[in-house]
């Protein structure tokens, strides 16, 4: 691992200040934190925030239906999947909010196009080239690193002009200081590689005290170690895969949710006092079919559920304009119908979570939807 002592030694060896771009030893421009956890693969909202109050649920889901006696009751209509035990505690403490029957503007069923819309904030796939989380970073004052991606590469939501670092735990032995210094010189004139290299060294330094394993708890602690620093990035993105439950859904979804619950719980524990300033948005590209398929799973659908968790969240509520699961209420006769725009939740959560103007955030993140009305009263003031 690379320690600050080494960075300083490298500086003395002639690397110069270019190696330390983000570590301006000043405080970050805001104390608020916003985290986006993407669920890649279309998470099954109906079995995560379960509409037990809707009589059609059990009929449609058959053997896949979650037993109401095992789930955590949220209100008269909804309950929470039993794997989300820590998340249920956050809900009871007023720090978790669930939003149901929610979807991005995308209405087809391709994962890749759906994720493109979810991450760019465009009206349709490939309409925008950069990501909404990057544009959000550009709205924050200062020119430090705005965001960190807990991934070896930068996910689309974070691509764009604002400065972003990426970090993934590595099993390789670290390269020696001499080689790092020479590589820095070698990339000095390369417009693509030079800024990437500077960001890599900066991130490696920030992560030095965190564990190097990729289990959900370590990942949560690692994310928190970036966000908790006084001079650290204020935005983070964490990728989760494996939500595409066409088959063997009960065990797979339970394991997925357990991992998510552990990840968020570890972040809460490691953030310390910064938790009170933190909002975590959990969202997926689209939902899954209302009915179970023939292989103990569900196929690609439309609306799903999203979560907003954190000490800064006005939680303890489920937001939903419930469309119902009766045959005539389903979108195209097969999917949960969207009644809340995910874009409105993103804009509201990001703006209130970071103390920015909601209308301006909405225009910047979702430029193709000028009439978008951000969801209000999501954050504690």
């Amino acid at each position, binding site marked *: 691992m690379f320690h600050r002592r080494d960075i300083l030694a490298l500086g003395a060896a002639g690397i110069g200040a270019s190696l330390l771009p983000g570590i301006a030893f000043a405080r970050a421009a805001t104390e608020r934190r916003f985290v986006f956890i993407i669920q890649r693969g279309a998470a099954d909202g109906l079995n995560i925030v379960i509409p037990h109050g809707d009589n059609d649920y059990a009929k449609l889901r058959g053997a896949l239906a979650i037993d109401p006696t095992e789930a955590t009751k949220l209100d008269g209509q909804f309950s929470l999947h039993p794997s989300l035990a820590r998340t249920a505690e956050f809900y009871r403490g007023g720090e978790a909010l669930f939003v149901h029957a929610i979807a991005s503007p995308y209405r087809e069923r391709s994962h890749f196009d759906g994720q493109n819309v979810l991450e760019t904030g465009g009206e349709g796939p490939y309409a925008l080239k950069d990501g909404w989380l990057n544009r959000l970073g550009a709205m924050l004052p200062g020119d430090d690193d705005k965001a960190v991606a807990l991934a*070896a590469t930068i996910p689309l939501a974070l691509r764009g002009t604002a400065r972003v670092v990426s970090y993934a735990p590595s*099993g*390789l032995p670290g390269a020696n200081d001499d080689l790092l210094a020479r590589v820095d010189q070698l990339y000095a*004139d390369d417009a693509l590689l030079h800024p*990437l290299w500077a960001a890599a060294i900066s991130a490696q330094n920030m992560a030095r005290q965190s564990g190097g394993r990729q289990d959900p708890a370590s990942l949560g602690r690692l994310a928190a170690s970036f966000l908790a620093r006084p001079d650290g990035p204020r935005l983070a993105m964490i990728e989760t895969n494996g939500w595409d439950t*066409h088959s063997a859904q009960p065990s797979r979804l339970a394991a997925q949710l357990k991992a998510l619950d552990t990840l968020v719980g570890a972040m809460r524990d490691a953030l310390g006092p910064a938790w009170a300033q933190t909002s975590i948005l959990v969202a997926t590209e689209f939902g899954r079919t209302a009915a179970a398929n023939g292989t103990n799973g569900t196929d690609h659908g439309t609306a799903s559920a999203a979560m907003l968790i954190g000490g800064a969240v006005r939680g303890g509520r489920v937001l939903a304009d419930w469309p119902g699961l009766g045959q005539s209420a389903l979108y195209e006769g097969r999917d949960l119908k969207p009644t809340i725009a995910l874009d409105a939740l993103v804009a509201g959560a990001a703006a209130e979570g970071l103390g920015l103007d909601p209308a301006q955030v909405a225009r910047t993140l979702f430029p193709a939807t000028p009439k978008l009305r951000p969801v209000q009263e999501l954050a504690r003031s």
Partner: protein
Amino acid sequence: MSISAIALNRFGLGARPDEDAPGNGKAWLEHQLADYDPAPAAWAALPGSTALADAFNRQQAAIRAAPDENAKQPVRMALNLATRDAYRAAVNARATAALATQAPFVERLVHFWSNHFAVSGEKPEVTTFAGSFEAEAIRPHVLGRFEDLLTAVERHPAMQFYLDQTRSIGPNSPLATRVAARNPAKRPGLNENLAREIMELHTLGVRTGYSQADVTEFARALTGWGLIGMGAGSAGHGVAGPTASFVFRPQLHEPGTRRIIGRAYPQSGEDQPLAVLHDLAASPATANHLATKLVRHFVADDPPPAMVKRVAAAFTDSRGDLPAVYRAMVASPEAWHPQPAKFKTPWEWMISSMRGLGLNDPGNMQMAPLLLQLGQQIWRPGSPAGFDDVAASWAAPDALLRRVEMAQRLCARIGDRVDPRTLGDLILPDGALTDATRQAVSRAESAAVGLALLLVSPEFQRR
């Protein structure tokens, strides 16, 4: 880059110091279409799908036979280890073939098609068959007709398991009707996964005019596809033949005429899905989709439209004859632009580095975990779309650092057996090596550091 350097680096897998640079780069590429070996020694030494499936089934039976959880646990661990070892051996065979080949252009095409028809080893069956998938479904067909490649790929056990085809059953098939007669709540049903990805990813491309109803109809047409001795419908319906080879099970097939993208498919049984695949392979949307991906791979992240059109026309005019398509690419002036426009993927960078260092095989290195550390787990891209083929997905801070660490580790093994000052002009010929890199290499504190700098230099990370 010169024509020779482009042929070696952009079309090939990187220069080797023990091979002369081609005098005529375009002729060198053409000759490779005759020199390619679909079953080189490294691949031929590995077990095929049938042997892998027999071993898998034996171990599954041993798990079932164990009396309790305590007894099952060691058998399960042995199966996991065997699956891992078979996967690692196959990744090493793939690397050996790429290092030792006389036809690096065609080996690159193997890697391209393997990624176009990506499987991802999240399920143990897919991990087991991932290597034999490339050996049996991709390698024999990369210089043939696209339709043959497509048919071999979709029916291979790796793809059938990956996209859940082994579980998809016609809801009105004889089998489903029998099951439902006993218990109406248990009527088996469709799984749309394979049908959707064939249309979206393997042939037509997304948003090319097909609908959800077309996907569902195609899924109905595909029911009945299965594997001997594995998957749904295999128990109690013993069909003789090698385990895991393709079989059509009429009792699982949804009866009736299918209607897909405005065309009726009245065929019964096995001919029906083949007729759909035939039409998908011949569609102009497929030609455009494949040409776009090929040109993106060989020329630029944003493929030049004129070249895409030309390559798509070659596909259509030749009725999907793949060598004709490759020749149209090589004949395109856009492909010979002297500025390198492609940032190497971890696999490309690792293979070109090892070729550049003169290695003929990975020796005692395990390529699979090394590539995982570089961010590209072979045959496990995480989605049926495969790995991305644009710089934005690979040129990232952490990824760059991993390459530097890997270069240090690779070159430490070489030490001063290779002089980095002479190697530079051999693997980046005709002035492709910049003065800045030449100077950095010559000033390095050791040969190993000099070699590492060469491999991570801006020009060596691109092609």
